[in-house]
């Protein structure tokens, strides 16, 4: 199989082929002396030219968060056969969707629908885990949509508001 991987600001093309007892890897066309084994879900033992690394996929989705030793890296993996547009492309420059960063309760709404907002201005406050978390506007503009009200429970990733 072939994948594109973006990590630490660089793009790599990776080929992985199964063979008896493991995998053959190429990165950017160069064969890699590597042996990778999945120890448990998300935990990989990787031997690279005799060096032993334990790579942990600690959270996933489009951007995988991977710890190797005490080093933390973000990797984006895509399948070159599937042409898909990045989130950045999909997200219109002019419209910024504000999502709930965690499950919680809307404690206060600080800006009314249609009001102008500054970049960094607090729009609402979510309470989660005994903490008040202010959700701020990523840009200057107008609060075009406001989808929640005070005391409402919200789930992680739920759309809260749109700034245009």
């Amino acid at each position, binding site marked *: *199989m072939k*994948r594109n*991987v973006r*990590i630490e600001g660089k793009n790599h093309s*990776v080929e*992985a082929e199964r063979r008896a007892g493991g995998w053959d*890897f190429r*990165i950017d066309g160069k064969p*890699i002396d*590597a042996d990778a084994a999945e120890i*448990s*879900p*998300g*935990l*990989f033992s*990787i031997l*690279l*030219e005799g060096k032993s*690394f334990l*790579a*942990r*996929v*600690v*959270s*996933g*989705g*489009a*951007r*995988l968060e*991977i*710890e*190797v*030793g*005490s*080093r*933390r*890296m973000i*990797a984006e*993996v895509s399948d070159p056969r599937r042409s898909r547009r990045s*989130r950045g492309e999909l997200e219109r420059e002019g419209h*910024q969707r*504000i*999502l709930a*960063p*965690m*499950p*919680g309760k809307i404690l206060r709404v600080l800006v009314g629908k249609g009001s102008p907002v500054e970049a*960094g201005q*607090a729009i609402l406050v979510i309470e*989660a*885990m*005994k*903490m008040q*978390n*202010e959700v701020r*506007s*990523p840009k200057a503009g107008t609060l075009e949509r406001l989808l929640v009200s005070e005391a409402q429970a919200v*789930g*992680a*990733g739920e759309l809260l508001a749109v700034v245009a």
Partner: protein
Amino acid sequence: MFRKILVANRGEIAARIIRACREMGILTVAVYSEVDRTSLHVQMADEALPIGPAASRESYLSIHKIIDAARRTGCSALHPGYGFLAEDAALARACDAAGLVFIGPTPEAMERLGSKTEARQVARRAGVPTTPGALDAIADLAGARSMAREIGFPVLLKAVAGGGGKGMRAVESDSQLDGAWRDAGSEAANAFGDGRLYIEKYLPRPRHIEIQIFGDHEGHIVHLGERECSIQRRHQKVVEESPSPVVDPALRRAMGEAAVRLAQAASYRNAGTVEFLVDDSGRFYFLEVNTRLQVEHPVTESVTDMDLVKIQIRVAAGEPLPFRQEDVTLRGHAMECRIYAEDPENHFFPSPGRIVSMNLPEGPGIRNDVGVTSGWTVPGDYDPMLGKLIVRGGDRAETIARLSRALEEYSIAGIKTNLGLFRRLLREPEFLRGEFHTRWLDEWLARPAAPEPPAEAMETAAILAAVLAEALPGEARAEAAAGPTDSRWKAQARADQLENQPRR
């Protein structure tokens, strides 16, 4: 000794108390809210009773429900842990009324020391140094201004009923006093239902060093040495250690004796902590008393080889302290990290959710006090602390080396944690030299992070893991690699739009 104890708490401290009880042959009753049915403390207890919905006010903060649970299950005592109702004298009184032993101090001692100004008065009378400032609530802004001028700026406005940095403001000059007085007062009123404030001298770069004390029914009071708790983020302790890098035997004795005098003046019983600020020159000033077991009690347990929860239970049952001051000796060094479900890379957002997998460090010198398990969903309704990692070693250097090793072994997948923060902190020369104060961590976090050294092989390993994680089939693995809400959340986090702060 008690036959059965109700544990009026959840998370790691409930598990901690249950373990102590089990080792003493005492039965335990857990209480739990709806979202905690499958939590560790319910699994570990001998009995478990539901006490209501997720909201603390209707479950873990309901004195009525908790006393009722204790009565229905035939408990003879109650351990409050820390947080929730642990410092609420009303719970202690309700226990008395229900014929239950409250494992902690008397309600009178809790009340007297719970008021910050009254505690300062007790300290003064006991000859314990306090920071210059008020011994009573300040009546109004004019009174605040005159006191501030008397002791000299900078000053600190603090809530009489306060704690945890709530209702607190540092005031640099006369011109800031007006706004600070108003903000702190309303914050205190919101948090404690008591807006009264007092003033004390602001120490610019103090250390927070506290003394563990213990008293029994016969009036014996001893101290178990100090804990260094200066590593704080926004007034919340994050790393604690014992002994403190700046406390020598003479200072330990002086602070310990001061703490014991104060406890004697308050007729203190059971476990408590006397907190001090210590300045550059080794002068110490009384800060406040915590009338309960502390989160960080394991560092004291590690260097004294005592089990503080068991001693709490024995003393509450009327037994005298099983040792005298001269029997207490500190050996080695211990350090604790509080593991939180939060994202240090993104404004320390809380990060509740499902723990997909969890690997704890093991081996020599490691103690894991954890309240969660792999596969469990951390609810968003409570404090984000998942547990504590406590490490002991022969000296501070070995302890830090061991803690670094342990943090490399530690992994929690599925939710964000502050493990990475500790790994970074333990490479920081100032931390390693023990050169810090209560605002050091906040300042350090505000510094631009040093760029990580290049590590091509680690990158290659991460690339291979990423490709296999993304491409391989297998339900279990897919689950680890993709929490459904997680990626959306991170998209938001990246936008760097949020700011969080302790609840007022």
